[in-house]
């Protein structure tokens, strides 16, 4: 079973995302900010990361940049899931190594099609 790391500082968002991602057949792990996420990845690299942008301690972009520098850090499929919906922000995320991008609000349909597009399903 593939693991999806859900990174978001909102407990409610993590809960909703967890429900959706679990229903798509993933085992889920959670992190409240980029630093926690990075620590997790150093121990065990997930197949997928669902990533918020604005979080305390370390934001999503900084996490992604550091992740991609880790050995095997290129492996996880990273899907942003954020309220940032400016074209310039989306481009920034893609430059930093994001595979897909979801603008909140999201629903299970959106997560499912995005996961399909990047070959996770």
């Amino acid at each position, binding site marked *: 079973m593939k693991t999806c790391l859900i990174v978001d500082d909102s407990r409610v968002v993590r809960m909703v995302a967890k429900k959706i991602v679990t229903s798509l057949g993933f085992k889920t792990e959670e992190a409240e900010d980029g630093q926690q996420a990075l620590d997790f990845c150093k121990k065990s690299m997930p197949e997928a990361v669902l990533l918020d942008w604005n979080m305390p301690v370390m934001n999503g972009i900084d996490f992604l940049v550091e992740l991609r520098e880790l050995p095997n850090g290129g492996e996880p499929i990273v899907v942003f899931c954020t309220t940032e919906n400016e074209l310039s922000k*989306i481009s920034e995320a*893609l430059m930093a190594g994001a595979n897909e991008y*979801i603008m909140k609000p999201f629903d299970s349909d959106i997560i499912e*099609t*995005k996961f399909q597009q990047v070959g996770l399903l």
Partner: protein
Amino acid sequence: MRPDQFTLLANLVKTQSGIVLTPDKTYLLESRLPPVARKHGLKGMEDLVNAVKAGRNKALADDVVDAMTTNESLFFRDQKPFQIIKDEIFPKLSKSRGGAKTIKIWSAACSSGQEPYSLAMMAREERSIQGWTFDILASDISREMLKKAQAGTYTQFEVQRGLPITMLVKYFKQNGDKWIIDKGLQSHIRFKEFNLLHDMAPLGTFDIVMCRNVLIYFDQPTKSKILAGIAKRLAPDGVLFLGGAETVLGLSKDFKPVPSLRGVYQLA
């Protein structure tokens, strides 16, 4: 709505568009027609039905039919057909059409435009046919949907369903909470109001026809008639794509399935 009112309206919709409305769809008429009545200065269902019955108001009849179309669509709907075009059809055409360097595609029920725009994006991305002419005809019976398709403006919700993010970044501009399709992409597409029940001969011929998620609304004879029409519009080596719940089986002897490509048909 009274059963006789339902029957009258359902008959109108059926004769004009082929769309079959069964009595369990009465609620659809009840919810979608009040705005049409208002637009035509009619007070309610009774007035609307009477005006339709009088049969002198073509614009009203058109609007009733338009209101009863189901226009749900998304970018790269079902993904698989588009994958097939990319992996199988474009490479084949890049060889067989090398002379004229033109590929002709018909999106036969294009709704709000996601299907023809998806095709145009794919054609742009395909290396083996760079610099070729893509002529995409995007047609629909619904004037409202064609307007939307032509405007090429989509909500955040719409651009997130099926459209890869790289394509959004590459082919759209942002304006507030709206996303607007690239003008260059639009230049490959001709939008046209066209009813599938009408004579298709003036449309020309096509290498690829997408007639997806529209036959489901018709009865068997109508489906057969439309498939027979499309067969005549297809190049001898052209392909037809139907929706996931649609088939030619039992409806048309003009087509046979392309082996191993689900939902794709060629001339028999």
